[in-house]
């Protein structure tokens, strides 16, 4: 069936190597611009809220994805939240081992339906638990460029 001449020796198969040589520059969009400017300049998180659907979006959206109304008011929701879930990651993207495992967590920011996915800092694997309150740790203001890397991670709330 199918093709009538097939390879029958392990030395026959060959392959061709190549890549997709592209590079990208992404804008943050209307919502992202406001969100990351607030992190950079004020060290806080801004969310948008849809009163009709009773949803507070973090990261903010300029639209409510449920009713599609425009959301143009940003509210400061602070930087405290709770560990919604976490994982301990051992691998880099290229498949190599990390120098040391890291705790990646989804932080549900208080007063929102969303949050931030980032690392836990100053919390050991033994201490981490779902529901643990945590607070964002930012880079010093002068080092912040406006990006998710302006956040070092989330640490314990005193």
């Amino acid at each position, binding site marked *: 069936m199918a093709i*009538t001449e097939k390879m029958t020796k392990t030395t026959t198969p060959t392959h061709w190597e190549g*890549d997709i040589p592209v590079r990208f*520059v992404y*804008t943050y969009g209307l919502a992202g611009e406001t969100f990351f400017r607030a992190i950079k300049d004020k060290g806080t998180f801004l969310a948008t809220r849809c009163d009709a659907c009773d949803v507070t979006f973090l990261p903010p959206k300029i639209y409510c994805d449920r009713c599609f109304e425009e959301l143009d008011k940003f509210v400061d929701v602070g930087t405290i939240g709770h560990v919604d879930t976490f994982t301990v990651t051992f691998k880099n993207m290229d498949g190599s081992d990390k120098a040391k495992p890291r705790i990646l967590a989804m932080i549900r920011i208080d007063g929102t339906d969303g949050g931030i996915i980032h690392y836990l800092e100053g919390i050991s694997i033994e201490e981490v638990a779902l529901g643990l309150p945590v607070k964002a740790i930012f880079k010093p203001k002068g080092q912040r460029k*406006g990006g998710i890397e302006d956040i070092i991670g989330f640490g314990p709330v005193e």
Partner: protein
Amino acid sequence: MKLEDCKLGGTHLKSSDFEKCKVLTTEWTPNLGYAWDNGVAIGRYLAELKEGKIIARICHECHRIMLPPRMFCELCFRPTDEWTYVEDTGVVNTFSIARVNWDASRRGPKEPPLIPAVIEIDGATKGMGILHMLGEIGPDDVKIGMKVRAVWKKPEDRTGAITDILYFKPVRAAASKKAAAGRKR
């Protein structure tokens, strides 16, 4: 509804907005590497190119001699039947004089233009063309319908790739007759 009456989205940024960092941006260069299996047909095609030969595949149902070779006939939807060598000469079906590189950068004033062409290879079914480059010819002299011949890399430099043919160059009638006579299958 009239578009004229609507407030349309889409905020235009100038390139200087990026250069002067008026908007926040982030960059990414993905590492998208592949090693595609050549399979039977292309595997043999590349192996023959390394030997300085162009090989095609025949379908006995539609009697096409197909290039690049394929193990099934996409029109008859059955396996193709046999291999055959075709010439390394052909006819220019169409061409372009390219002053632009693959990434849209421009070729410098001293760089000669690239001349990509579709070349219908002699010995394959009429119309069976492949993409390749023309060389040893000025942009003003290229004509649709002109006869061309492959210029191969030196045998020791060939790797089994389409680039084992450096380019196709024009052939004069006399030279082509002589070459055809001396050619071994």
